[in-house]
């Protein structure tokens, strides 16, 4: 098992603009660590730097406490799964799996043993003689994983491995990869742009944007207490509803996008006077259907999506489009005014200028994560 430490890692091309900016990070042994961010955020570059495929412009990369900045990829004792799987099209599945072992001159018996083990694990025993072009996307993916298994490297890097698969297969492979990682106990660094993958797979997630760390933490923490507006809007599907907000003159109410009035005392938010401009956020599941007693807003529906187990309803709030997720099936028409309950304790407050979180939803704490 490997432990990775990044100390002020930077990357710039041609000594110009920084692609990655002083990344400090420790990835624990046996951890499933996910790097997530929009395209161009530098997440793949970071992964390739750890792999040794990309030069490190500044900072120190340590694996198990030793600096490996100038070590070639093959000496870093790791394996990697590429987005396109990087299978050799002219070699059979079997030869693809043991390619690295042959290159490292592992003896024949050991090679055969590891091959059998890995192909059984990945359900490839029947396919060993086939060429990659005769395999489906999912099978190719499994060959790439089998290659990782036979290498017995304590660290595995994956660069968007599921992005070429269809949705159903992707869900399936998510579980497989997760199980595989737990079974072998390797350290896994997983790059994706898909926040659902990040949320569902990672022990910890790092959100990256514009080459800077936005937040590192457990998936639930990122969801409940996003450190800034970027993380808030990036993590969660549908994305968090946001709006510019200010307190009314008497300080007894919050006005969102000059449209919604939420009864709330300004003392509810700590140090509110330090932040002249506020942005509030509320998750889709917290725009609750109002009953006769507790309805505090009526909102006009602009779109309805029936998902079967829940109904997704969109509203116009000022310049923003807000989405509510109501469990069950609701018969609602576009244009209808529906009763909605917005509770102040579900609101997250951000400073509009810096984007930083001022206060997360009070209700989330202790209530959302149920322990069994």
């Amino acid at each position, binding site marked *: 098992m490997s432990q990775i430490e990044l100390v002020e890692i930077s990357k710039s091309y041609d000594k110009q603009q920084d692609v990655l900016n002083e990344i400090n990070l420790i990835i624990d042994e046996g951890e499933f660590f996910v790097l997530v961010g929009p395209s161009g955020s530098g997440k793949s570059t970071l992964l390739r730097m750890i792999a*040794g*495929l990309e030069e490190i412009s500044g900072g120190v990369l340590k694996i198990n406490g030793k600096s490996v900045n100038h070590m070639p*990829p093959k000496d870093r004792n790791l394996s990697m799964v590429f987005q*396109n799987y990087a299978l*050799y099209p002219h070699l059979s599945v079997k030869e693809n799996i043991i*390619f*690295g072992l042959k*290159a*490292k001159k592992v003896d024949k018996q050991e090679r055969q043993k590891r091959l059998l083990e890995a192909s059984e694990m990945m359900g490839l025993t029947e396919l060993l003689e086939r060429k990659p072009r005769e395999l489906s996307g999912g099978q190719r993916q499994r060959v790439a994983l089998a*290659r990782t298994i036979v290498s017995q490297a304590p660290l595995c890097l994956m660069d968007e491995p599921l992005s070429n698969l269809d949705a159903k297969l992707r869900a399936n492979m998510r579980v497989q990869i997760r199980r595989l990682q737990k079974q072998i106990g390797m350290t896994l660094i997983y790059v994706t742009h898909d926040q659902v993958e990040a949320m569902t797979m990672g022990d910890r997630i790092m959100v990256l944007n514009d080459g800077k760390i936005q937040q590192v933490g457990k998936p639930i923490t990122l969801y409940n207490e996003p450190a800034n507006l970027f993380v808030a809007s990036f993590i969660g599907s549908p994305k968090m509803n946001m709006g510019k907000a200010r307190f009314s003159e008497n300080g007894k109410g919050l006005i969102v996008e000059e449209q919604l009035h939420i009864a709330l005392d300004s003392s509810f938010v700590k140090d509110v006077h330090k932040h002249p401009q506020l942005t509030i956020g509320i998750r889709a599941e917290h725009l609750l259907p109002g009953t006769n007693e507790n309805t505090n807003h009526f909102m006009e529906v602009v779109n309805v999506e029936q998902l079967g187990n829940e109904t997704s309803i969109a509203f116009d709030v000022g310049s923003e489009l807000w989405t509510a997720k109501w469990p069950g099936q609701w018969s609602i028409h576009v244009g209808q005014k529906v009763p909605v309950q917005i509770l102040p304790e579900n609101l997250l407050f951000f400073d509009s200028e810096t984007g930083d979180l001022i206060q997360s939803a009070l209700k989330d704490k202790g209530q959302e994560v149920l322990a069994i």
Partner: protein
Amino acid sequence: MSMTNTAQIIETGLIDLEQVKKKQRIKSFFKGMAFLLPSIILFSVFLFYPMFRTIYLSFFLTKANGDPTVFVGLENYINIFSSPIFLRSMKSTFLFVLYTVPASVIVSLFLAIIANEKLKGIGFFRTVYSSTMGVSVAAASVFWLYLFNPSMGLLNQILGTFGIEAIGWLTDPKWALISVSITTIWMNVGFTFLILLGGLQSIDSSLYESADIEGAGYLYKLRKITIPMLSPTMFFVITVTIINAFQSFGQIDILTQGGPINETNLIVYSLYREAFVNYKFGSASAQAIVLFILILLMTALQFKLGERKVHYQ
């Protein structure tokens, strides 16, 4: 009554549909032909007609202006195959192919591999290596004619500084074919280099990265990834180079004119002389047909043998 009516309507409807389909098919056929017409005309005038005319002429004796006179059947063919000069030029041609093709491919493969590295200023080397493609056969031949010059040529001067006796590059029967081959290899390299470099660059870089991580060395990668992945390109290059070698003419005409003692008298040059120096168009046509069949067979053989070893993505 109404039943039969509907049946009729359905039937007539079907017939109409068939007719419409037929009309559309005819229309699209003529449309297609209209698009093909320019190339059909060009090919007919410059390829198909000359080819059939050559086959026709090869069965005749001709006047000096090329008009056929006496039908002689296969006599032209029998004559050329019993002529020691033609057999000699067949042998020279095969030797020439043997000298030029493997050497061209190996040299350009080597250049392509080193020019595929990501280095500063590699564009300059790529340009230089592929530049011979832009040099015409005539210019290249004249340039090599100077290099090969027995007394003031650069090659002999270099040999002279090492104290080696001057070589009659183009006049010595032992060396003439080799000298012509060297010129041809030099001219081939530009094109084959460019094609091979293109082939190398189309190999997915993630294959090499994956191999790097798995601990493969340079030669292992070259043997297990580069060469197999390049095989379709190699196949193309080899086929084209072989055909070109069989058809070489310009450099022979300028460098040696088929001499010394017919040592470099390749088939194309031999048939040119037969036709335009000796005015024996019948015999020349027969040689042309033999060459055509030879190239056809070689290429067919190559596809038969080579295709199995070639990996297509």
